[in-house]
């Protein structure tokens, strides 16, 4: 996308959890159309970094600069966070679940199109309790399609997905980046879309 000013820059970030410094003096920069992979062993702070960017944790040092595609610095309203948990409510049908989030985020997204995009087309009326782990993850990803936002934070997005699911995620990511979005994905597997950058964390990294 031309003249997109989208950028997310972290400088000197440090985070403590449970009395332990998870990482310190961490820096990165991601721009429009870029996918950054965050790699590293368990406990290196991949999830912590994503939660920090999402605003769910506060850094003890460092700064996070966000600029939207058309200026503006409201990061919280511009990002999608897909965590370990899928936040799928049992008691709802697939469509109800997605419709709630779309409405909650003031999205006017096409719910059926989003379900089709993640391979849940035709399952809208099915209770979420009947879904498999992979299908729940697909439903979580459908939110990122129903409500368009420039920044995606994906924590182990391929965890519950089978080969077809990974291919689907690759298509979603490529499409998102092509539209000028950015994505940061924590993983210790190969991502289905080729990352432009890799941020390698190690346990106790300085």
């Amino acid at each position, binding site marked *: 996308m031309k003249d997109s000013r989208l950028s997310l820059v972290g400088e000197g970030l440090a985070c403590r959890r449970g009395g332990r410094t998870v990482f310190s003096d961490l820096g990165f920069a991601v721009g429009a159309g870029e996918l950054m992979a965050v790699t590293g062993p368990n406990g290196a702070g991949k999830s912590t970094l994503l939660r920090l960017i*999402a*605003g769910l*944790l506060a850094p003890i040092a460092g700064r996070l600069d966000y600029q939207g595609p058309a200026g503006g610095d409201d990061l919280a309203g511009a*990002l999608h966070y897909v965590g*370990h948990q899928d*936040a799928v*409510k049992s*008691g709802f049908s697939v469509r109800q679940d997605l419709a709630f989030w779309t409405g909650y*985020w*003031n999205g006017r997204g096409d719910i059926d199109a989003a379900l089709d995009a993640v391979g849940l087309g035709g399952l809208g009326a099915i209770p979420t309790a009947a879904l498999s782990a992979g299908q729940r993850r697909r439903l979580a990803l459908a939110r990122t399609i129903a409500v368009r936002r420039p920044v995606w934070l994906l924590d182990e997005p391929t965890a519950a997905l089978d080969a077809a699911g990974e291919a689907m995620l690759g298509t979603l990511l490529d499409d998102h980046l092509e539209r000028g979005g950015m994505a940061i994905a924590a993983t210790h597997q190969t991502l289905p879309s080729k990352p432009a950058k890799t941020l390698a964390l190690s346990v106790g990294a300085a």
Partner: protein
Amino acid sequence: MTPFFTLVRRDVALAFSAGSGALLGVMFFLIVIVALPLGIGPDLNLLARLGPAFLWIGVLLSTLLALDRLFQADHDDGALDLLTLSGLPLELLVLAKCLAHWLTAVVPLIVAAPLMGLFLNVSPTALGATILTVLVGSPALTMIGAIGAALTVTVRRGSLLLAILIVPLTLPVLIFGIGAVNGAVVDGLPFRTPLLLLLAASLASVAIAPFAAAAALRAARG
């Protein structure tokens, strides 16, 4: 529709969806009310005198019973992260969830109260006063309970802990509530003063509790 009311509507819908048991609180209320005469004896005059207090305590316990899952369900499946991430400020989110809880857990208790009053032979005046005071005072129960629910959101088996934390904080509500009922029934006792104090407690808790609960929720995810 605004995010606030979207969330209220979703919580109300979830409360009445299969497997959630929105009416368990009313059943608990009924069981408490049935158990009391079996302990005290079937003397209708005695029951009539104690009835309003029983109703109030029944409402208090039944409200607390349903509160422990107020934030925990959303915390456990990750929805709380997404809800706070963008959309509503955490304080308004607390308020929305409390409103939904009040509508689905407390209003049924108020609707069931006349029936319970019948079992306890409560006079119409006392029953009317009880229902009025519960209506005025129950928002305080829900809001104060929400603080406890936020404090115990990461605690397994938090419901007992919640009750231990919250019951002492709600005692003023109970005192003013039953005080107002007595004022309505017994000549010479004040009715307006405790009712206004009750109203003040509800308004103050609606204003203050969201901030306390939101602070507790922020601390819980740290």
